[in-house]
């Protein structure tokens, strides 16, 4: 729970500014512009900084918001308050349309795609007859409450900043929730999030819509501030500038968007009004200086100004420990969770000419620890990926509790009670251990984005965090609960992954090299934990290279070599199996 005090102080200061005697009206205009830019930048922070989706097209959404209200209030005489939801709706609906195409793009396609449709829409604004072509639409009515008409920049100021502060609150609330964790995990790739039931395309679309609605809100306010719209402020240049504002402020921080807007708007203003005094007689000098300062700023502080400022504040003490007495409802147990949990029948995976997994069959029973061993490249991790739905098998079948699950996506597999860890740790390094582990409980929560923004999710959220805290304590990392996951040692990060997998309340736990990077004592603790889990009714399938660890722990061992199963049995029989010895040590041994 973040402290609300700084935000309250900020709101009070902003509310007091217009009442300072002798305040130049021009400054109020500047603050209006900062607020408008901040709204768009905040959406970009969520989209780009947090979600990892770079968009150059936000200016087009500002345009949709502005043109919607401009058209409806002038041509159809609707009240501006009636057009507010319509402006947001239009921006949101277009975001759904463009988002469905755009968020599927990966890597550099995404920013370039947004640049392209941003430009296309800009030209569309400037060519459409009913939008007034290049002249735009003028004589837009001002906002009014009763007989109070917000004609001056000083009166609409309040509307703008109420919107900014509300948007910032809602956005921070959203980030600090079940949905928010899913969004924050997006930037690190989709495999880990999907393994815990996050529907990543939907999460991406959600941030896309959120950012577009904020941009639409900014456009609606802009139209009623200027009382006229034309295509110029919604072009590619503006789209680039919004992104720039977010990066300067600090692309991962909601308040960085506000700070960035202040820096850029004021900087541009200063350059425009003072440069001609220094370098007289030449236009566009401010553009040159602006461009150069931009590059210089990036070279000095590539992370943005907000985190740089925050680093001067004393470090906040760790968060509050969740109340672990709150219980989360358990996964529904199915009949048959006492017999064969997992049945792999002649699973095969080919990558082109390489057969990574060659007709492998094995079972995992209830209350059993099965180890999957084999030399490097034997196909162990590929087998894991086949079971968890990350890869689909070329042939063969995999069934859980007797039901085939071939080609089911990871989100469906985890619902069956199978959770996993990864060979290469996939945690979100700038989230705390607690938040990372809580992603594991994603499917056991219910709150959606709207209730998260309005803080109606607190009871649900407290139960999720309590479950996460319980699992962290169970694996013995209670002291690290509020540290950033990225600051832990690699061995500890693997343990965090186990806690995250336990949050699923699984019947079968898949561990990919859990003991790698652990010290001797830690390995013994891990082995004890896994035995306890088994005795509590859970099954474990693990891939591991540490033979001492495996032989002492596993009930049964399956040995793979070059994708083929060469042996299966108890540790004692595997140790003396000549095929296994040959695979590990060569023929002569």
């Amino acid at each position, binding site marked *: 729970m973040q402290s609300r005090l700084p935000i309250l102080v900020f709101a009070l200061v902003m509310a007091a500014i217009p009442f300072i005697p002798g305040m130049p009206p021009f400054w109020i205009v500047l603050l209006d512009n900062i607020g408008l830019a901040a709204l768009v930048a905040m959406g970009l922070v969520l989209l780009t900084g947090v979600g990892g989706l770079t968009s150059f097209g936000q200016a087009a959404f500002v345009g949709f918001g502005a043109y919607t209200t401009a058209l409806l209030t002038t041509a159809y005489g609707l009240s501006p308050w009636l057009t507010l939801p319509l402006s947001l709706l239009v921006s949101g609906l277009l975001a759904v349309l*463009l988002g469905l195409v755009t968020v599927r793009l990966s890597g550099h*396609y995404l920013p370039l*795609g947004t640049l*392209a449709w941003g430009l296309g829409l800009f*030209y569309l604004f400037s*060519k459409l007859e009913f939008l007034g072509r290049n002249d735009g639409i003028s004589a837009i009515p001002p906002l009014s409450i009763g007989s109070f008409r917000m004609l001056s920049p000083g009166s609409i100021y309040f509307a703008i900043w109420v919107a900014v502060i509300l948007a910032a609150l809602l956005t921070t609330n959203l980030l600090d929730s079940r949905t928010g964790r899913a969004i924050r995990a997006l930037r690190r790739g*989709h495999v880990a999030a999907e393994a815990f039931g996050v529907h990543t395309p939907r999460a991406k679309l959600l941030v896309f819509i959120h950012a577009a609605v904020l941009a639409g809100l900014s456009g609606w306010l802009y139209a009623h501030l200027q009382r006229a719209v034309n295509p110029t402020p919604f072009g590619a240049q503006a789209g680039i500038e919004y992104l720039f504002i977010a990066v300067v402020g600090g*692309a991962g921080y909601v308040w960085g968007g506000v700070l960035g807007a202040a820096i850029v708007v004021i900087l541009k203003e200063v350059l425009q009004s003072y440069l001609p005094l220094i370098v007289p007689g030449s236009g566009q000098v401010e553009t*040159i200086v*602006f461009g150069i300062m931009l590059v210089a700023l990036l070279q000095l502080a590539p992370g943005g100004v907000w985190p740089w400022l925050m680093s001067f504040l004393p470090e906040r003490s760790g968060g509050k420990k969740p109340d672990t007495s709150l219980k989360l409802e358990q996964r529904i147990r199915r009949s048959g969770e006492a017999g064969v949990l997992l049945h792999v029948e002649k699973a095969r995976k080919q990558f082109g000419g390489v057969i990574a997994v060659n007709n492998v069959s094995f079972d995992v029973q209830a209350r059993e620890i099965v180890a999957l061993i084999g030399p490097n490249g034997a196909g162990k991790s590929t087998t894991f990926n086949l079971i968890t739905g990350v890869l689909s098998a070329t042939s063969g079948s995999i069934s859980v509790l007797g039901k085939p699950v071939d080609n089911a996506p990871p989100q469906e597999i985890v619902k069956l009670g199978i959770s996993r860890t990864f060979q290469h740790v996939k945690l979100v390094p700038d989230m705390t251990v607690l938040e990372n582990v809580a992603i594991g409980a994603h499917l056991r929560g219910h709150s959606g984005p709207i209730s998260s923004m309005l803080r109606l999710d607190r009871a649900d959220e407290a139960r999720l965090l309590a479950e996460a805290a319980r699992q962290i304590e169970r694996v013995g990392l209670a002291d690290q609960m509020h540290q950033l996951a990225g600051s832990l040692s690699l061995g500890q990060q693997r343990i965090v992954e186990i806690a995250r997998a336990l949050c699923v309340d699984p019947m079968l736990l898949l561990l990919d090299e859990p003991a790698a990077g652990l010290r001797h004592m830690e390995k013994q603790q891990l082995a004890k934990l896994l035995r306890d889990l088994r005795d509590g009714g859970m099954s474990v399938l693990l891939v591991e290279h540490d033979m001492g660890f495996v032989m002492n722990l596993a009930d049964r061992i399956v040995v793979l070599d070059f994708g083929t199963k060469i042996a299966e049995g108890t540790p004692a029989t595997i140790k003396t199996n000549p095929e296994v010895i040959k695979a590990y040590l060569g023929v002569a041994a």
Partner: protein
Amino acid sequence: MNTTIMLFLVQDGITNGAIYALLGLALVLVFAVTRVILIPQGEFVTYGALTYASLASGQMPGTAKLALAMGIVACGFDLFAARKTLHGRLILRSVLANVVLPAIVLALTINLAAQKPPVAVCIALSLVIVAMIGLYLYRIAFQPLAHTSVLVLLIASVGTHLALQGLGLLFFGAEGQRGPAVLSGAFTAGSLRFTGQSLTVYGITIAFIVGLWLFFGLTLYGKALRATAVNRLGARLAGIRTTLSGQIAFLLASVIGALSGIMIVPITTLYYDSGFLIGLKGFVAAIIGGLVSYPLTAVAALFVGIVEAFSSFYASNYKEVIVFMLLIPVLLLRSLAAPAVEEEKD
């Protein structure tokens, strides 16, 4: 429509498309090697074109001075970066490449500009000037940021675009310029008229595509560039200087940009800010090509050129809308054909 108009539009489209192909190739090259999405590519085009046009009309282009100024800054960056391990040879090399060279070019330009030099000299001087600007631009703006994210590089790229475009206005004014044809004369084949200029465009485009293909396929530097594109760290471990790869990429991109500009400016009037839109159409081609494939980019560029020619004939108002919206179905097909793969980002 009759065949003549159609053929004429196709021909017009191919001429424009050839230019977009060159620019698209340069963008792909720079992105692959340095991860920079080169928005100032458009400025290389206008700088090349307007420097050429100014020289041909006997004016002194401001870009020559800019090259020297940027060279001095780049030299300063070099010396500052190596301040702990300075030695004579390093200083000498940096001063020669960054200060003496542009100074000589500036002196040459001042001397020659007054006497309205022949077309070949104008072309050579313009190319050298813009090439130096491209090289120093990498040193000043992008080399210090080489380790940062694509997003930061992109924003820096926007910054350099703004600065260079502003400088363009300062140097060349708001008036548009045209330059003399590189190759004059024309002949007709059937109902089509081929000008020497359009033939030059085809010839140079094909020469460049073949040249790049040979460069990347056969030379050590070309292979080093490809290695850098695939894996920066791996390339460094194999002894490839990634900064050198970046310099070569920018050098090639600026030469290609300037050359494209010189080829267009006899056909259409260019303004200081025309480059941005021309560069963006190269982008469209590059994206359709997936930012990785040179031949695909070239084909896509011809396609963009032809679509542009036809839409300017039928719906000239919506020309730009059509060209840029063209991307959406392409991107959609692309994303459906190749589902997103896991990306490890830092």
